[in-house]
């Protein structure tokens, strides 16, 4: 139970802990990948459909209001589609930025 012995043991424990921590760190990110991708896909699909639905709703409402049946319906479905694609592309860009950030973070950690 002499002091230097304790210090050595503590140092060895520190090293082991550091090694274990490093081994554990990248784990969860890799495991989540499958679910995350499915979620992103599902999110994009709902965004596209929601855009179309909103376009349809606005167009139909305006047509009933003004009595110009197919005009605004066609126009706003197209606009809704464009809006849906816009949101979809934005979330795709967001996912891309996240994965790039994760990649740079991993590279920095590897150095």
């Amino acid at each position, binding site marked *: 139970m002499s002091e230097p012995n304790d210090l050595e043991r503590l140092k060895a424990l520190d090293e082991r802990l550091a090694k274990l921590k490093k081994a554990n760190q990248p784990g969860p990110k890799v495991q989540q990948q499958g679910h995350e991708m499915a979620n992103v896909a599902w*999110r994009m699909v709902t965004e596209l459909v*929601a855009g179309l639905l*909103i376009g349809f709703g606005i167009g139909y409402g305006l047509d009933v209001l003004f009595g110009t049946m197919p005009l605004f319906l066609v126009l706003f479905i197209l606009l809704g589609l464009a809006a849906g694609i816009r949101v979809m592309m934005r979330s795709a860009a967001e996912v891309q930025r996240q994965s790039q950030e994760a990649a740079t973070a991993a590279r920095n950690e590897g150095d």
Partner: protein
Amino acid sequence: MSEAAHNSEGLVFHPMDQFIVRPLFGDDGVVGPLTFTNAALWMLVAVLMATLLFVVGTRGRSIVPTRVQSIAELAYGFVHKMVEDVSGKDGLKFFPYIFTLFIFIVFSNFLGLIPGAFTSTSHIAVTAVLAVAVFLTVTIVGFVKNGAGFLGLFWVTSAPLPLRPILALIEIISYFVRPVSHSIRLAGNMMAGHAVIKVFAAFAPLILMSTIGLAVTPLSILAITAMYGLEILVAFIQAYVFTILTCVYLKDALHPHH
């Protein structure tokens, strides 16, 4: 119900019956604005469970937490980190709201997995209220923080001038896509999984009717088990997705120029 009695010979498929909102008291079956329904009951149960976990569970306030207290602390830390990571330090002011949303959705989703329970989050009426609340919060916060400059979100200055009104229209529609997709996603996920389980469950009693049942019944029971496992995942993941998207929208309102 009466139809089920008529077709008692064949297989009975009523996968959507579990989502019917029924009044708990009285037999007239009329759902008024203040009727106490099964949906209301299960939302109350969710609130009650959350209260049990966070008020009663952490009553000891011990430094070394008990099991229930550490569940509460883990949930708190999980959402706190998520809000801080996604919407930044100034988003933490909204942490109580986001945490409340997360806990309510998690409890509703998991309580809906108890056989015979009612999944309140499978109704768009419920999820739309949550999504519209988030939408209003985010919009109001955006206007309060940035003033009229928040409208710059819809006015694309990098485009040529004649195109801007059309682009503004598209941007406004895409802004309204958020609450719609936000609510459809949660309700759709919860409803679809539960309906699939019910369809498999309808195949299960086939063994009582014909010899094909010898093969079909074990298969359908296996499928129910697998779907149930998947639903446990979905129940958590959808609550997580709802919360993290709330954080993303909040970030857009706090820092609209990114």
